[in-house]
């Protein structure tokens, strides 16, 4: 009899403990940070200006407003350029995840000695980077682009984050952006 009483008291103690645990719910738990307020590159914008005709400006975009995972990218333009022409290229990185669009390009520029933009293509197009960081190494936010013959291919742009290791090589660091645009030289 006495034993069962003690048993009951132990169980009661435990029940009490569990109830005490349950009763409080921290404000911090209920209010998680909004992940949309986090900085994200969602959009790459390439602006090609014809060197011979400054009114010939074309803009091509790749946009994935909800970042990696989630929904598929919403815009994937094909780059269309004229054959045997010279262009100047300006690149912009944007955060379009919320209604007020943020320009990340400025940040890349500020931390230019940690960043490198790399270009590769298989369409006989030459890309020469025209901007340099404080150490005299390429950045790649602006470049001169020269097309040759009419051809279809891929034009890949990659933003590399290379803190402490930047030496001009594209092999190092971590890729923050990598977009392969379809390229049509007409």
């Amino acid at each position, binding site marked *: 009899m006495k034993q069962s009483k003690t048993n009951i008291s132990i169980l009661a103690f435990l029940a009490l403990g569990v109830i005490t645990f349950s009763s409080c719910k921290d404000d911090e*738990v209920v209010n998680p940070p909004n992940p949309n307020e986090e900085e994200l590159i969602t959009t790459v914008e390439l602006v090609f200006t014809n060197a011979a005709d400054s009114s010939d400006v074309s803009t091509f975009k790749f946009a994935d407003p909800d*970042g990696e995972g989630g929904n598929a990218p919403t815009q994937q333009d094909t780059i269309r350029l004229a054959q045997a022409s010279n262009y100047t290229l300006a690149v912009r990185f944007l955060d379009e995840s919320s209604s007020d669009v943020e320009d990340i390009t400025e940040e890349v520029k500020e931390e230019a000695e940690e960043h490198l933009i790399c270009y590769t293509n298989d369409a006989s197009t030459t890309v020469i980077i025209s901007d340099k960081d404080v150490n005299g190494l390429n950045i790649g936010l602006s470049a001169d682009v020269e097309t040759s013959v009419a051809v279809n291919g891929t034009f890949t742009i990659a933003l590399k984050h290379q803190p402490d290791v930047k030496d001009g090589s594209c092999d190092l660091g971590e*890729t923050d952006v990598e977009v392969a645009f379809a390229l049509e030289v007409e």
Partner: protein
Amino acid sequence: MRTVFAVLLLYGIGTFSYAQVTLRGQVLDSATSQPLGLSFLKIANQDLVSDTKGNFEITDIPVGDYTLHVSHVGCKIKRVHIDIQKDSFIIVYLPHHDHTFEEVVAYGHQGNREPNARRIQIVSGKKLEQLAAVSLSDALQNTNGVRFLKTGTTIAKPIINGMHSNRISVINEDSKQEGQQWGSEHAPEIDPLSAGSIEVIKGSSTLRYGGDAMGGVIRVLPAIFDDSSYTKISLLTKGETNPNGGQLGVKIENNTQKIGLGQRLVVNLKRNGDATAASYALSNTGFSQLSGSYYAHYRHGKNELALTATAFVQELGILAASHIGNLTDLNRALASDTPLITRPFTYTIKQPSQLIQHYSGKLKWHYNSDHLGPVTLSYTIQKNLRQEFDNHNRNKDAALDLNLTTQQLNVLTDKHINQWRLQYGAQGEQQQNIFQGRYFIPNYQRHKTGIFSILTIEQDHYLLEGGVRYDWQNTNTFRFVKDLVINEVFTFDGISANLSGWRRINEDLKLHLSVATRFRSPDINELFSNGLHHGSAALEFGDLSLKQERSYSLNAAFNYNHNRLQVQVEPYLHYFQNYIYLQPSGEIQLSIRGAFPVFRYIQTNARYIGTDIDISYRITSNFTAETQAALLYVKDVVSDKYIFGIPAQRVSGQLKYTFAEALSLRDGYLWIGPSYTARQNRVELDQDFVKPPDAYFLLDAEFGAQYSDTPLHFSVGVNNALNNSYRDYTNRYRYFANDLGINFYITINYTF
């Protein structure tokens, strides 16, 4: 090598005809005649630990003259000379610090019982000191059947019966260690030097410690004090060349018998710089750790109160070359034989890095009730902070910042009536997680309750134990979905049950068997992962509709001791229903960072079959040869595919030479230990970025001894003595770099 073994074997057969006897006994305090639980014993080349009542049993000794070494925490080693001609029972009285007492040896015949049905491997506190262990992987490095899932050299999660993470529990005496165990790069936050001893309980007969530890339990036990008054200070140091660094540990222990108060303070500091592989540096793998604990223990009459406080702070670098942005980076790393980033050696830890903190406080009350038997009640609070810094936002906030708080309440009664033993108890837990920075898992609050009952019958030649447990849990999660915080609720409950026991077939052979069914609720990351797993170049998606997973397990153990031969075989079979794992889906998803392979948490049925084998043979009174093997086969039985990330088969051996006294050294030993790890061929080639690494061979060696009659113990050793280049399948850094090259180390312990 093969010839040597053949010769040893032949020699062994020639000596099998020796008569062999069993020595049983008990260790008691000479002042109080109270049993001294967990005393350490050594006879010839066998080391063992007495059970909690001071009982021990040594079964395979040839007749002859022996010196039995007996020690206990706070005691000097006692050497007892005995002439064993037949099965004997001896009582050893340890005089602790009072050296005027002579030890008393009594012979008799008395039954010896084992405390329960489980097979337990124990790493003693003394061994932990000798190993100068700073992590669980240091502490359990020689425990057969325990492997590690590693991320580089410093992050290691134990694998038992092929299972890791949430299928293994780390238990601090009676309450589960709660940390952020949500990935292979999250290691348990344990300071082994603070432990009195560490137990490994394989298999599933561990109902007391929760319903979800299907693979096994690692139990960290508190310090034990002698029944005398003393103060003891121990210094533990270790220096090593790879990773280049050192360690300093201080243990201060005080016991005042008059007022029944024992106290222990442990502070442990470790620092090392970048490690090196056989032919290059592993940049940014530095590590620093400050851990410690305070333990106090007060006894009065039938009451016992214990207080534990622990702190653990660790900062570690993540291999520079392993931090990658996308699949292109990964492929470039895979294509290169050497890491893409190597820098000169440094102690400085740069980003990417982790800062991990774990603090806990525990209050335990133990009462020896006349009616209920011993009753134990405990309250534990734990706090785990994890900050992960990546290459972005340098010197600013952590990219990942998680704050986990857990409170636990435990009650257990343990009643013995004749040969019967009844244990029952309950656990309650509340846990909450709060994150800042990048979303990884939602904020949540979780409540857990479990009740269990275990009935045991103990006899001389067999033991039978049956247990049943009910667990319930409820989780409230809070996360943003399209600018709105939503609250989702998950409730899981289920029954676990276990029947196990052992039977002594004859003096040589003992069999253990255990059948169990258990369940595990899906973890928060299995439910909620949604997006890029940074650093692993994969998109991982959880599934909110996951059900609980259930296991049906069969664990056995054959324990055979004959003459100089000891054989232990521990086969196991686990069948899982709704087994949860991260499966590559074969899809590729496009994002602004490039294309990523998609992994999804799915449920299937899975089968684990494996065995741990341990054979040791005493060649002469000085030489012992030992071999260990761990074999494991795992399959998804629904798709008939192999499951990713299962450790490869491994065989290891050890040839050990021991001596009692030579060149003013005492209790010395020298061992060499080769090990061979096979290539993991049971993989689906389309489920990994790269083929599994090749098989590899490692050679380790160590020499250690006590200097004369002083309390100075030292060891010197070498790991990977051949400086082989290798990569291990269960080390995530295998994609980027070779594992550690040659390492020389020295440990020195001194007790005042």
